């Protein structure tokens, strides 16, 4: 153990800038950290904070306009900065590997998996082909790939996203690297897949004794994988400490604010509002002179504005970049007063009894285009993608139904079917007592006005050619008889309702940030005063602090305008926070539906149980059962018979699950579970998540 003292990677005062068209933009300033052998450092921050730039700087993969201005990067005691690429290759050797976000673009689509894995060994290690194959297969076994010999002969597109990422990780580990850099490796994956990839990373780290630099925007993931955490904000590390210190005793105001923005699993809108961070991230071209967080900090003082704080260590092992954290630590840890719940008890609201939306046995199938000769002649059997397969649900007036599920479960198709962008092939749908089976073009204008939608992608939700004012005003012109002047007043009122000032009226979408675009989309959706708004993942492409603001806004608007909502998301914590009722979907079917607090406590549907155990929780002290699903989601073209979940269910009973559709069991009033397992058995389940210490969440998951 001679060199145990030397860190594997030591970065000192790193500064990186990009040459833009007209100016030099500093992306990273004064970043220092070290990673020792077998240690994992998590870098966390919102988009644009420079976390990926740090990683690229370390491996010298900056874009052509990027430049390291200052600082040093020591890899096992050797300086990497300022060397030629040949020297770098020798110094670094094959001891640094990197895993990126998108596994499909990391793999060559025209080469078989086997060739790509072997190449690492034949090129870097000079192994013979046969031996390289053997090593590759062993490695695939170690990343738990089923049937590794067969995988070697496949092409990347023939694997699922989770499998692809496993292959990339296997490839990164083949060289037995001293340092593994992972840049959002699980961001594109579903929660259950993410959970198993994270397990794999943790296990491999123990086994190979590799150091890890892990980059993510997801606080929960960082809490799970890291030993030490660095919190980045606009190019600087503002807080760096052990994972427990950062998550349980955060000192920097930004870290504290960030933690408060994220809905914890089990937190609901009744118990708290999410306090968003005020203002927006300063542009790197126009940074504040003093503390970079000062304009958005609730506790900023005069000194913060004038002097840039240095990284200091008020508590041993806990570094922060703040002038006055200690003074705040005592008094103002809690969110400012005005942001604590102000809601009326929603459950007390009179229930009109009749649901506003009723969906009964709805099926939406897509025909699979088949270009074979037999089908062109009309002989072949038609194949259908069963996107929504026999779904029934009801939404009471003024409430929110959350629909949750992994990608491909049909939740978006369900939303499109309800608003009328897709036509179901059978079933019944009633909205306000009217039949809404026909597509939107055949519906009555009055009905069309009552049903609006908020979309997922802020980049494509607004027409880039028109001003904000025109786009919010258009539904007014369609649905109301306002004069031009009145319409403009109304648009400005709507802008105000989504907390944008009147100057946004004449802006074009490209001048807005993602969160602002989503606000405008929201204003557009509520302009016609609809009764039901369908939100299809409205916050999933936004940063957490922006997400918090949008969620608050949605809650406020829902109160003010008495809107019923169908809220679709893949994020279980957001769904729990936002919804009164929750439906869990899997492969086009609903497997559990009921009031939110009931869904998140036993008895669970086995799939819900697995989902809950996979959610990354930004709390290292949380006690979470680990239930990992095997296999992949079956194709909706050919879903399994009987219960669609039987192929992956860890609690499968046997033949009955494969043969018969699961019965609907009533666990409590309004809580239905579609499963063969008797209710008594399901009731014996234990709560998946127990948060041991958390002041703001009461009772949490085991509310039953």
């Amino acid at each position: 153990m001679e060199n145990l003292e030397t860190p594997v990677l030591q970065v000192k005062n790193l500064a990186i800038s990009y040459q833009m068209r007209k100016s030099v933009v500093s992306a990273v300033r004064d970043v220092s950290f070290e990673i020792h052998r077998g240690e994992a450092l998590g870098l966390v921050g919102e988009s644009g904070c420079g976390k990926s730039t740090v990683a690229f700087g370390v491996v010298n993969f900056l874009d052509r306009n990027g430049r390291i201005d200052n600082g040093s990067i020591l890899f096992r005691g050797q300086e990497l900065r300022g060397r030629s690429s040949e020297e770098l290759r020798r110094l670094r050797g094959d001891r640094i590997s990197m895993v990126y976000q998108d596994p499909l673009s990391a793999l060559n689509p025209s080469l078989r998996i086997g060739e790509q894995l072997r190449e690492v060994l034949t090129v870097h290690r000079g192994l013979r082909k046969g031996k390289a194959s053997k090593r590759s297969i062993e490695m695939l076994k170690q990343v738990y790939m089923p049937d590794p010999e067969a995988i070697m002969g496949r092409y990347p597109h023939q694997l699922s996203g989770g499998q692809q990422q496993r292959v990339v990780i296997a490839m990164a580990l083949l060289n037995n690297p001293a340092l593994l850099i992972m840049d959002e490796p699980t961001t594109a994956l579903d929660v259950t897949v993410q959970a198993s990839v994270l397990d794999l990373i943790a296990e491999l780290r123990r086994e190979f004794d590799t150091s890890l630099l892990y980059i993510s925007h997801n606080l929960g993931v960082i809490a799970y994988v890291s030993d030490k955490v660095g919190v980045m904000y606009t190019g600087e590390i503002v807080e760096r400490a052990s994972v427990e210190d950062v998550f349980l005793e955060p000192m920097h105001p930004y870290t504290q604010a960030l933690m408060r923005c994220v809905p914890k699993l089990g937190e609901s809108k009744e118990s708290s509002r999410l306090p968003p961070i005020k203002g927006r991230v300063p542009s790197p071209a126009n940074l504040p002179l003093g503390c970079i967080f000062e304009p958005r900090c609730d506790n900023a003082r005069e000194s913060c504005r004038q002097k840039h704080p240095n990284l200091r260590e008020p508590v041993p092992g806990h570094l922060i970049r703040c002038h006055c954290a200690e003074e705040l630590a005592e008094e103002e840890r809690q969110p400012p007063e005005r942001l604590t719940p102000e809601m009326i008890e929603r459950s007390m609201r009179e229930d009109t009894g009749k649901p506003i939306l009723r969906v009964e046995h709805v099926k939406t199938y897509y025909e699979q285009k088949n270009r074979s000769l037999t089908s062109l002649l009309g002989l072949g059997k038609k194949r259908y993608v069963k996107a929504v397969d026999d779904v029934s649900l009801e939404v009471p007036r003024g409430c929110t139904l959350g629909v949750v599920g992994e990608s491909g479960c049909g939740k978006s198709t369900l939303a499109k079917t309800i608003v009328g962008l897709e036509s179901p092939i059978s079933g019944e749908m009633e909205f306000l007592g009217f039949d809404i089976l026909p597509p939107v073009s055949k519906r009555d204008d009055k009905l069309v006005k009552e049903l609006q939608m908020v979309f997922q992608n802020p980049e494509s939700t607004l027409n880039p050619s028109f001003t904000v004012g025109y786009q919010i005003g258009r539904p007014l012109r369609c649905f109301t008889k306002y004069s031009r002047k009145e319409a403009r007043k109304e648009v400005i009122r709507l802008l105000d309702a989504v907390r944008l000032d009147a100057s946004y009226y004449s802006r074009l979408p490209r001048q807005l940030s993602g969160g602002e675009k989503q606000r405008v989309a929201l204003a557009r959706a509520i302009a016609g005063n609809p009764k039901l708004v369908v939100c299809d993942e409205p916050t999933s492409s936004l940063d957490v602090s922006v997400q918090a603001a949008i969620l608050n806004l949605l809650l406020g608007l829902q109160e003010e305008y008495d809107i019923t909502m169908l809220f679709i998301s893949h994020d279980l914590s957001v769904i729990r926070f936002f919804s009164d009722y929750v439906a869990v979907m899997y492969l086009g079917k609903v497997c559990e539906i009921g009031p939110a607090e009931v869904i998140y406590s036993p008895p669970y549907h086995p799939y819900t149980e697995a989902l809950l155990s996979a959610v990354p929780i930004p709390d290292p002290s949380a006690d979470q059962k680990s239930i990992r699903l095997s296999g992949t989601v079956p194709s909706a073209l050919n879903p399994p018979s009987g219960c669609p979940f039987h192929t992956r269910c860890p609690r499968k009973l046997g033949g009955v699950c494969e043969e018969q559709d699961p019965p609907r069991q009533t666990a409590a009033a309004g809580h239905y579970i579609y499963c063969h397992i008797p209710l008594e058995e399901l009731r014996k389940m234990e709560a998946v998540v127990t948060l041991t210490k958390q002041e703001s969440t009461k009772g949490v998951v085991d509310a039953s």
Partner: protein
Amino acid sequence: MGVSEQARPPVIATSRSLWQRFRDVLAPILASKVALVGLGLVSFWILAAIFAPLISPYGPLEQDPEAMNLGPSSKHPLGTDHLGRDLWTRLIYGARTILVLAPLSVLCALAIGTTLGLIGGYFGGWIDEIVMRILDAIMAFPVILLYLIIIVTLGPSAINVVIAITIAGAPGIARLVRSLTLDIRTREYIAAAELRGENPFYIMFVEILPNARGPIIVDAMLRIGYAVFAIGTLGFLGLGLPPPSPDWGSMVCKGRHYIWLNPCAVLWPSLAISSLVIGLNLFADGLREETMRYQ
């Protein structure tokens, strides 16, 4: 939103000022040197055409029997043709016709092609099949053959030249617009418009078309260049404007009989055609590069 901002009375500009819009349009042109060179060449011809009577003391049909097939001189800067007409005068008057006919025919082709492309791309299904198969059938003909068929059938005249170029050009534009439409119609703002119960024609022309304009404009610039070629070719074949009118194509055609005696009569109109086409192409190329970079 700070308190100070709320206290301020809201200043609302309902529409962006004319100057702002003008600057938006101009920015990509000024940023590209290639586009500027192209613009220079094209505007040379446009200015010459507009101010033709001021620039030249002669008329385009004015003959001088004393000065036939002459080379450049102080009296006739580019020389004269076989009938003693001033070549420079004929060129700038010829620019007048070609600079009206070429853009006009492309505009007509744009109107038809864009409409068909939007309809095919937006509605899809059997409507798309029918529209595109008919256009494919037109595109299967060699362009020059198509011109000949149409003009021979309708007779040579300015209007018929426009009709011929329109019919030959529309299918290509329709294909381009259709592919752009197929992409844009999947955007969420189109779904939002559908959810408002908007008329399909509103969606096609107001929601989709403005977002497809970049590639369409660049394509149209190139097409004006092709149209200049086409008009020149038809003129050369004697299918353009009737004889005495100053037409670049027919000038080349007439001049080639005396090519050994007086090469100028062929050289200048040929140079005119190529400089205008090159100018338009450079302009289109520069515009495309810049707009791509803006995206």
